């Protein structure tokens, strides 16, 4: 009882001055910042329950969530994406690292300390069957956040709950029904209504649609979309379905064994994935188009299974299954670098970009095995894109050297010629190599013409710099303003 009174004492002043509810962060501001986040679950054995090891569920994550955006998180089961969701909502205590919400460090806040923040950070759970108490009516379930926070909404709790029910597309008259009277899709809507009750800023949704049928999935995805537009919500959506994630997200983080391997704007990630794992993951998604049945060769098959997170592989964690892995991948962990504006990758030998460790060319024996599973077409295509990129880099340096407006057209021509050379080199590869190179050539000459010499095309900025200098270039572009968010 006294506990409850204390809670109210904490909550009510915050409510009465109204700052938490009215102060909306401007779109694009960093709402949540995570640095070096770790969560290790101890493995205990024996009579004394001594710790004999740990599951490295989340092992060093750095990312930001900006207000108004949707960050999608994908990965296979066991990659730590759900643990990440539970850490940022502070349902779990991190082992290391730092979580900042609106500039406040919430890493080690206790239950009481978190309570005022619970209003701003809410969660939608995966399983709509186990996340609703079967003995409570949905009126009680959706009204619970108000009671816990000591908030008295205008017009009373019942009226507000009924409003929320209609917002998520349920009949407000169902206020007194129990969860078992609803179907899976409707239950998920109840979970969403509960999460929205306190007008949160950040909603973390852990596999919000994976338990639902396809037709219902689409309803819920559209609902989440509408709510974001109406209420200006920020989402972190965790899912394993890459097509759903692409549909809902602005930026996407790909996780593998407790690490982010690639974090990029949606279109960049799906058009030009840089990390080999991202590429393999995307190629594995079955495409609902029977005409592609014969095109099995496009697929990159990964061998074996995800290694155990108890003793993750050294260096790059993907090196045991990667077809491009070399010695450096085994020994040195690649940092997550912003290689292109809006695309951060942790890889020594990224796809669709210049090699980060070109001196290291000898494939590991694992990689040779893995490469057998990768179709020739996929390898040829990757070779073609690197040929095209080489052309792009040369053309970009040609354009970058231009001193005055007069020299511009001449340099653009030179760039063309260089790209043409590169194209000739690439012609040994395949038909697609030519197309790729030609496409990049035309795109590059266009940008060289349109951009003046002093304002370099932003696209080619990191590409123009030396491979060794990619780190400073990356930090430079992180400081520059974030790319405009597509809506």
């Amino acid at each position, binding site marked *: 009882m006294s506990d409850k009174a204390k809670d109210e004492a904490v909550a009510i002043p915050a409510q009465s001055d109204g700052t938490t509810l009215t102060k909306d962060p401007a779109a694009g501001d960093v709402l949540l910042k995570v640095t070096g986040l770790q969560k290790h679950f101890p493995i205990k054995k024996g009579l004394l329950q001594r710790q004999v090891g740990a599951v490295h569920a989340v092992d060093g994550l750095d990312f930001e969530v900006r207000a108004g955006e949707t960050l999608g998180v994908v990965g296979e089961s066991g990659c730590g994406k759900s643990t990440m969701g539970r850490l940022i909502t502070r349902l779990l205590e991190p082992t290391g690292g730092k979580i900042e919400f609106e500039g406040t460090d919430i890493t080690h806040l206790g239950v009481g300390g978190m309570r005022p923040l619970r209003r701003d950070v809410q969660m939608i759970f995966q399983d709509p069957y186990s996340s609703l108490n079967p003995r409570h009516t949905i009126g009680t379930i959706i009204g619970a956040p108000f009671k816990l926070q000591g908030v008295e909404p205008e017009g009373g709790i019942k009226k507000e709950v009924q409003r929320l029910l209609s917002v998520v597309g349920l009949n407000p008259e169902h206020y007194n029904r129990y969860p078992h009277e609803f179907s899976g899709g409707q239950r998920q809507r109840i979970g969403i209504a509960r999460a929205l009750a306190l007008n949160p800023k950040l909603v973390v949704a852990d596999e919000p649609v994976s338990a639902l049928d396809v*037709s219902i999935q*689409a309803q819920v995805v559209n609902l989440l979309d509408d709510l974001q537009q109406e209420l200006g919500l920020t989402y972190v959506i965790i899912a394993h379905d890459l097509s759903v994630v692409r549909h809902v997200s602005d930026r996407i983080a790909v996780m593998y064994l407790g690490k982010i391997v690639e974090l990029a704007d949606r279109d960049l990630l799906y058009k030009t994935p840089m990390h080999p794992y991202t590429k393999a993951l995307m190629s594995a998604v079955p495409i609902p188009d029977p005409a592609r049945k014969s095109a099995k060769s496009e697929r990159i098959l990964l061998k074996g299974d995800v290694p155990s997170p108890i003793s993750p592989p050294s260096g790059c964690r993907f090196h045991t299954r990667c077809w491009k892995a070399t010695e450096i991948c085994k020994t040195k962990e690649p940092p997550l670098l912003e290689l292109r504006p809006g695309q951060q990758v942790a890889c020594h030998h990224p796809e669709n970009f210049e090699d980060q460790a070109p001196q290291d060319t000898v494939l590991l024996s694992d990689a040779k095995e893995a490469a057998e599973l990768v179709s020739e077409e996929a390898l040829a295509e990757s070779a073609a894109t690197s040929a095209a990129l080489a052309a792009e880099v040369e053309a970009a340096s040609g354009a970058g050297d231009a001193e005055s407006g007069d020299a511009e057209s001449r340099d653009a021509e030179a760039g063309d010629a260089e790209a043409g050379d590169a194209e000739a080199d690439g012609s040994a590869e395949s038909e697609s190599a030519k197309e790729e190179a030609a496409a990049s050539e035309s795109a590059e000459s266009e940008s060289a013409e349109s951009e003046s010499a002093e304002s370099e095309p932003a696209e080619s900025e990191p590409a123009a710099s030396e491979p060794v200098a990619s780190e400073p270039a990356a930090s430079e572009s992180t400081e520059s303003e974030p790319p405009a968010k597509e809506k």
Partner: protein
Amino acid sequence: MTELSKSGAAVGEPTVASPAPSAFLEVRDLKVHFPTDDGLVKSVDGLTFQLEKGKTLGIVGESGSGKSVTSLGIMGLHTAGQYGKRKARISGEIWLDGTELLSADPDHVRKLRGRQMAMIFQDPLSALHPYYTIGQQIVEAYRIHHDVDKKTAKRRAVEMLDRVGIPQPDKRVDNYPHEFSGGMRQRAMIAMSLVNNPELLIADEPTTALDVTVQAQILDLIRDLQKEFGSAVIIITHDLGVVAELADDLLVMYGGRCVERGPAEKVFYEPRHPYTWGLLGSMPRLDRDQQERLIPVKGSPPSLINVPSGCAFNPRCPYADVPKDNVTRTVRPELTEVGSKHWAACHMSQEQRERIWTEEIAPKL
């Protein structure tokens, strides 16, 4: 037939003995009903299809549309009376390679099960026995149908594990299911179902419990094995991507009935049933440019106890009022041929559907 009428398992008119079909597997007017306290659950209510050897049939539909009940019905796994005294009521005909299974002697069906027809279940962890090693379970499946000694059978088990791509099969054969990862368990399941070279393989949601990368491996495996063994495959799934990869023919189920059936290309490119349109519109697709919005099917799947009268899809169908005289709510539509080997059950006229598909639905997908 006597078997069935004695046990009271037949529903409706006892079927007149019809001539054996030419197709390898032919299902005619299959009905599987379960009596419950709340009423009769009509899980499958009149299903007809054919399947040739070496071909793959995909069955898609939402949960509760009767996909799995169909597959268990073909395998003859319903009559065992697993629902207490009340047995499933099954009627219709299932012809497998010239034999009618529903009226056949249960002992005969038992001989066929596992040998001529085999099944891959959705959840390999609950389908494998935790108490026996993988090897023991494969050996058992083999020795039931082949009179060989244990050594030979074990050699066969190792050979099958190797065939489905399990590393070090001679060592892994002595592992228990819990020592395998999800993908490997599903491979072991496939090895077990293929150990007797079945001519019909039914895969019930074989990849639903798996990650995409593992799913890709398993789908490739099923495809390769089918090519090698030439079996007929029925693949049951809710994922249109999976059937598009594997299936030659497609059967869309809704409320226990087939609403559309035809060659996969036809069903994907010229669907003629509003429910199929709904399924295609609900899916975000990686191979297309970003859609603005998904086009969901409104409402939820029907209860199989009180299936809506008329067309089962009418409460959710945006075009329920297109046909005249409220016919969608009173008369159950029958499958009609809308193209070569392509059937759909809808009251709208062929021209109306063609127009709606080409003008309203297809451009938005």
